[in-house]
């Protein structure tokens, strides 16, 4: 058993355990922290495959920025403990078989369309210098369309968050602080 395989299994175990813990915890902040563990473990898997840039970006964007905002919102709202319910009947009767069928389908597709050999550690050329030409030449249009999509989402968030103008006599909360 090579070191890479051991590390791969270790990171995988952390990711799965984090994901299960995310569902099992009753307090939102514990769930959010479990999600951070999942993100960090995924970054470790990317690093093992040789995708250094992707691993670093995964940590910076997901663990460092997106999840900080999650935790920030939970702190700000002071969200309380959630109650566990038994779940709806549809979720159990349709969801569990659906998830099973989905994972079987993915496994089948992956096994059929890839060679019999596993991906070797460090096989992906993940250096920034090999990713940049792909992003800025070959896939420039999808990349730019994605950024426009994000821009539209930001503008939508600003519109939704801004309060309708009130009469000038009554100062809003924002003006006070």
């Amino acid at each position, binding site marked *: 058993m090579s070191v890479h395989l051991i590390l791969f299994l270790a990171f995988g175990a952390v990711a799965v355990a984090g994901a299960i813990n995310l569902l099992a915890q009753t307090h939102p*902040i514990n769930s959010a922290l479990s999600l951070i563990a999942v993100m960090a473990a995924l970054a470790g898997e990317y690093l093992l495959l040789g995708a250094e840039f992707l691993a*670093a970006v995964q940590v910076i964007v997901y663990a*460092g920025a997106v999840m*900080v905002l999650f*935790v*920030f919102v939970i702190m700000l709202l002071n969200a309380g403990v959630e109650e566990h319910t038994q779940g709806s009947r549809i979720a159990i009767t349709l969801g569990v078989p659906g998830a099973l069928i989905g994972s079987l389908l993915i496994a089948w597709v992956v096994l059929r369309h890839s060679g019999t050999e596993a991906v070797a550690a460090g096989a992906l050329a993940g250096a*920034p210098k090999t990713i940049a030409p792909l992003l800025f030449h070959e896939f420039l249009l999808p990349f730019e369309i994605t950024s426009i999509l994000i821009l539209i989402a930001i503008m939508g968030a600003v519109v939704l968050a801004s309060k309708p103008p009130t009469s000038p006599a009554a100062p809003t909360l924002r003006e006070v602080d």
Partner: protein
Amino acid sequence: MPIWIYILSSVIKSALVLFILLTAVAYTVWLERKVVGHMQNRWGPTRVGPFGLLQPAADGVKFLFKEDLTPPHVYKPLFLAAPLIAVIFALTSIAVIPFGNAVKLFGYTFPLQITTDVNTGLLLILGVTSIGVYGVALAGWSSNNKYSLLGGLRASAQMVSYEISLGLSLVGVLIMSGSFSLREIVDAQGGHFWGFIPHWYVFPQFIGFFCYLMAAYAETNRIPFDLPEAETELVAGYHTEYSAMKFAMFFMAEYANMITVACLATLMFFGGWHGPIFGPVILQALLPVFWFAAKVFVFLFVYIWVRGTLPRFRYDQLMAFGWKFLLPLALVNLIATAIAVAW
């Protein structure tokens, strides 16, 4: 090189760097008390040892022997984890920082860096420091105290806001050097303009450097941006409920972050270990490390100088400065650099 030499050298380097870093943290605290003292016409620490030089050791012993209080109303798991998170990630980020050229010993070359040169070194530092926010945020939340919570909220909002300017201010240097590797960035800064001005990126990238310095002060929660622990409003901010060594861990994390930020500024803008090299062979080997340390020291001194000079901002001023001035300025600098390099 055989694997056992590699592992042994990594362990020795890690232990050495950790020792130097923790000593530097302790003596930065001493330096701060001393320099701010003199700026305010006081002496600073004088009692313990000559010039108060043993004060950090006395403080360390005091922190270790103080009673470690855990208030009854805190959320315990995160209350204990928060100082650990803060100090672990503050100390980890030093791992990819190179301190000098490679050294030849016993026929092997050892890079003066804990890890070998990773080609995304800068991104790793930014990633690790961005995780450090959780220490502060969770400390504020888990203390279950309104001052702590406000301090934690302020800290996380401030750090997320200024991280964008911090990252953008460094992109100009990345465009000019064409690499994420810290070693390659430093190597690109060798030589001189017109034979006498050092080829440092601070000259073409002075706007980027200004943005970096401002954002770095805010990221490390230092005056004039130390709103998260503003004593006049928040008692002590996110570490109000912490005592003894747990409090000292936040303190250590803050100063270790200052040192990392100073190292990064040296590497990105001030040519790293480049400087005049002269004298016998042993001196030639030591001088690059000396220049690196000297530049880092200058940055730490400026940090303290600013602390002794400037008052604290108001929180809305801090946010307006970050989003309405610093971020556009960093963006303009980025676009101008890109146009200049492409042209």
